[in-house]
């Protein structure tokens, strides 16, 4: 009898465990929120975008096993799990953005426009319009993220193909170039017409500069302005051990979010942002020593985050499903660090920043965590999932995609 009782207890415990493991698809969320694993293993998904009918489109970093790099996911029976998945497109990339029946996708060199039909199926999978072409792609920071303003202009990030604009990139002791010639064609946000075909640099406009590598960007309809998240520079300690210890490198410089207006300069490569001194510090490649300030005219960030966590996607929440404090606030998907080593890596989560009237009304906080599937990530390849893209569904649910194996999580509030 005792044995049976024990067995019974054991099976209850086991059931509880399995239920727990499935619970919220392994994510840790604030009270009242729940998550489902909307899709898994679709291929390294960078960004996602969702139609008014709830169709999810994902842009893959490279074609998946079936040779597709744009994936359409539909949840026909509305159980929170995609049941109809197909795709097209044979080029890798990051950006995807859907507005009405226009679906934009980016490669590392250009932007393409697809047409959707009434069912939000693609009409011209092999013959998209080429909207922008011949953008700089020199491997480093080559991914192009895109967003639209209400008028339909398209904003694209062109990352700097350099760490700190040294004469020789990442070469110890090599000086920073003055002025940095990279900024003519990269290291900023460019603006293009959303409909005109075959645009090149000359047809667009450098909208904001001094941004090393932006991957998250979103148009805030409250402030009617563009917000971007920048990846700060690497390797302060390996190049300048006289000024920076391993521990300082692990915390410097901050990852930053800016509200940018036309013509703004965010300071790269001349300065980086130090979140402890709350100052723009002159880069050591330009004569800095960890204390001297620089670039007085460059913007200050509207929010800063711990170093190296790699903000991959930014989304201002427009819905009403989430409680009031989340409304109009910013969600940021963090990829997780790689260059805090030898210290443990950090930041494999989705963060939230509360906003009121277009200004942060509090500090950032972790919103969803547990993507890595392990408490301490000593090495990035051990992380199961790395948050990369964010999108809001028509019902106000938040979708998060991962560019490791390609999981998509759907997070909802249940009251």
């Amino acid at each position, binding site marked *: 009898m005792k044995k049976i009782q024990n067995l019974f207890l054991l099976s209850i415990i086991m059931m509880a465990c399995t239920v727990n493991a499935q619970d919220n698809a392994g994510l840790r969320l604030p009270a009242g929120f729940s998550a489902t694993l909307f899709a898994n293993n679709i291929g390294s998904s960078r960004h996602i975008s969702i139609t008014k009918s709830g169709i999810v489109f994902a842009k893959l970093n490279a074609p998946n096993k079936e040779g597709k790099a744009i994936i359409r996911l539909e949840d026909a029976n509305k159980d929170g799990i995609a049941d109809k998945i197909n795709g097209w497109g044979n080029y890798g990339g990051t950006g995807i953005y859907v507005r009405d029946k226009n679906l934009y996708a980016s490669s590392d060199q250009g932007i393409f426009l697809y047409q959707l039909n009434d069912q939000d199926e693609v009409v011209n999978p092999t013959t998209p319009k080429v909207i922008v072409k011949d953008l700089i792609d020199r*491997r480093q920071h080559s991914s192009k993220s895109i967003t639209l303003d209400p008028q339909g202009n398209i904003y694209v990030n062109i990352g700097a193909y350099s760490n700190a604009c040294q004469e020789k*990139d990442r*070469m110890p002791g090599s000086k920073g170039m003055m002025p940095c010639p990279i900024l003519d064609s990269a290291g900023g946000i460019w603006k293009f017409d959303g409909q005109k075909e075959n645009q090149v640099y000359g047809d667009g406009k450098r909208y904001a500069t001094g941004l090393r590598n932006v991957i998250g960007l979103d148009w805030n309809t409250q402030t009617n302005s563009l917000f971007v998240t920048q990846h700060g520079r*690497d390797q302060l300690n390996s190049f300048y051990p006289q000024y920076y210890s391993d521990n300082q490198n692990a915390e410097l410089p901050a990852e930053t979010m800016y509200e940018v207006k036309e013509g703004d300069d965010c300071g790269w490569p001349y300065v980086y942002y130090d979140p402890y001194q709350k100052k723009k510090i002159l880069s050591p490649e330009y004569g800095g020593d960890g204390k001297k300030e620089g670039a007085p005219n460059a913007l200050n960030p509207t929010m800063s985050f711990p170093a190296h966590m790699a903000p991959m996607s930014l989304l201002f929440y427009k819905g009403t499903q989430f409680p009031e404090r989340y409304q109009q606030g910013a969600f940021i998907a963090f990829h997780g660090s790689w*260059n805090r*080593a*030898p210290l443990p890596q950090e930041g494999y989560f989705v963060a939230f920043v509360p906003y009121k009237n277009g200004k942060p009304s509090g500090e950032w906080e972790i919103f969803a965590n547990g993507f890595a599937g392990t408490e301490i990530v000593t*090495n990035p*390849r*051990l992380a199961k999932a790395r948050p990369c893209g964010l999108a809001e569904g028509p019902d106000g649910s938040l979708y998060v995609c991962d560019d490791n194996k390609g999981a998509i999580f759907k997070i909802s509030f249940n009251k």
Partner: protein
Amino acid sequence: MKYLIQCCFIGLLSFSAQKATAQNMANGKKIYETRCLVCHQADGGGVPNMNAPLDGASNVVGNDIARLVKIIRNGYNERVALDGYYYSNAMTANPDLKDADIADVLSYIRNSWTNKASKITLAQVQKVKKK
């Protein structure tokens, strides 16, 4: 007879040259930790899509030693698939690293984690011309 002894001696030398000594490994490790670990990580696993893994990489344990030496000296920034994957970061050059140190760090990455391969000798590094 003299020839035979010489032959034997050379044979022995080249045989003993196959395995990295504890000293090679210790020096290689030191260099790895200060110059390479930040990107390739403590477990040699690299960073997906960004920094190539060294652990289990066919080129790292392979026979194209000149290529490995050039990568360490000059850095590496090419659009090539490594074991089927592409990596987007640019690897730092190490122009100030002595040939003996290059030999040791290569011996170290060829014999760490799950990797097992012959050691790289100073002579092998010296044979590769600087550009």
